[in-house]
């Protein structure tokens, strides 16, 4: 979905998100968070999956309608744009959404994109990443495309080779178990990883204390201190 949001488009950084009120009614009552997928001039894109009330309503919007949007919110990815670093982007399922914007910013650097999903039809943005010049590798749980297995297994498979490129940096977004595995890998191979977390959000602006994740320094708000965290800070 493309939104014309001149101010947000100017300010947004990869990993930041928007809070969208999809309807002017009580149903749904709260806003919903969506990562910034891409920015093109004044236009900003979000990529979403229909999973419930709010996303169903979003899917019915027509070109030219207005949407009530707050953003950009949260802390995004710190970019490592030194030329020697090999940046590895790891996406699980809809986790590709914010990593596209990151890949655009890292397009000039050495980088690889690993995309994983349950099955071939759930692999998104492969071509878009390739158009950026990204080196893209795919994994599916059922083996219908690319490597058969989890995207984190794929990562472990390429790491022994990639490690010769040190320094490496990992950026990941996806389901929680995947991010936990990324943290483990990051620690095992001593590679810094930044992960984008999700939590249920009521406000998205740090006011309700609803969206916490346990970190080594105590609870942190995903919407304010995150959604991107250093993997080694999270207590799983």
């Amino acid at each position, binding site marked *: 979905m493309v939104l014309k949001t001149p101010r947000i488009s100017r300010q947004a950084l990869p990993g930041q998100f928007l809070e969208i*009120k999809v309807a002017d009614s*009580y*149903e*749904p*009552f*709260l*806003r919903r968070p969506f990562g910034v997928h891409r920015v093109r001039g004044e236009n900003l894109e979000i990529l979403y999956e229909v999973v419930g009330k709010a996303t169903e309503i979003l899917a019915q919007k027509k070109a030219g309608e207005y949407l009530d949007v*707050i953003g950009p919110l949260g802390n995004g990815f710190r970019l490592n744009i030194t030329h020697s670093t090999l940046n590895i982007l790891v996406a699980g399922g809809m986790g590709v959404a914010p990593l596209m914007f990151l890949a655009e910013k890292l397009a000039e650097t050495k980088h690889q994109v690993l995309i994983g999903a349950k099955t071939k039809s759930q692999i998104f943005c492969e071509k878009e990443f390739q158009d950026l010049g990204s080196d893209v590798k795919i994994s599916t749980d059922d083996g219908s495309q690319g490597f058969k297995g989890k995207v984190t297994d794929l990562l472990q498979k390429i790491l022994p080779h990639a490690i010769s490129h040190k320094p490496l940096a990992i950026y990941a977004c996806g389901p929680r178990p995947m991010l936990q595995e990324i943290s483990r890998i990051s620690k095992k191979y001593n590679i810094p990883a930044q992960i984008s977390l999700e*939590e*249920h*959000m*009521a*406000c*998205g*602006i*740090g*006011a*309700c*204390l*609803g*969206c*916490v*994740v*346990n970190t080594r320094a*105590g*609870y942190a708000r995903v919407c*304010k201190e995150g959604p991107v965290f250093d993997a080694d800070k999270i207590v799983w």
Partner: protein
Amino acid sequence: MGMNPNVQVIIGRLKLKNPVLVASGTFGYAQEFTHFIDLKKLGAIVTKTITLHPRKGNPAPRTCETPAGMLNSIGLENPGLEVFIQEKLPFLKKIGVPIIISIASEEDPEEFIVLVKRLTKIKEASAIELNISCPNIGHKSLIAQDSKAAYNLIRAVRKVTTKTLITKLSPNVTDITEAALAAQNAGSDAISLINTLTGMSIDVETKKPRLSTITGGLSGPAIRPIAVRMVWEVYQKIKIPIIGMGGIIDTFSALEFFLAGATAIAIGSANFVQPRITIEIIAGLKKYLAENKIKDIRVLVGALKV
């Protein structure tokens, strides 16, 4: 016509330039809203409840959406009294609106006395709200559910402070007027109602509760009719002012509370949805009064026609 209706109201010893407050726990310590509104325009700011000692709060998930509202079980996460004074109060002081500090005890009601004594010495604490009604800290019963206990507590607190005392009541009782009367008789200057209603929601697919603590506090438009009813019941029984809240999302829902008997109102969950809603409602109330040629908002208080 250029009519400029009066919206100033008085709560205890506090003079508020308008009757629109923010509900405790829905506005943090105000910092988060600086990007959205001019904080100076608020009638008063009620801060997130603090306790004597820091509280970590409950594990996630702490919130979930429900029909026309939400459940929360934050568990009174707060940095504790001293850190609040050191780190949060300096910012609040600078805003220039009355700061109402919400406090609660964890185990021992004596903690209220310690908190109140300390806050009484702080000039910028304009008033104290006694949160005796938080449903999310794992106790089986709340002070607000036992009128005698509430009376004794407020009475003890009253003895140690001259600051305006507001008692926040729980709707999770059979007769709200009993608790309200106890608070008035014990020397509370005002009543805040309502806190959240205990509720529960289940994810049928996983058969798991949607909150980590299983039950939590329901807020939002879903609870508004209950809140309005309770304000009306209490208004008929007590003389001290009522700060009404529960599901206010716009000017018209705010007006319901004034008509039911509230002197002031507080905006809660709606701050999450529309961070500018407080300012819109302040403007909306003034416009409504002007359009209806009502000179003073106080005329509306309890003006329900029956």
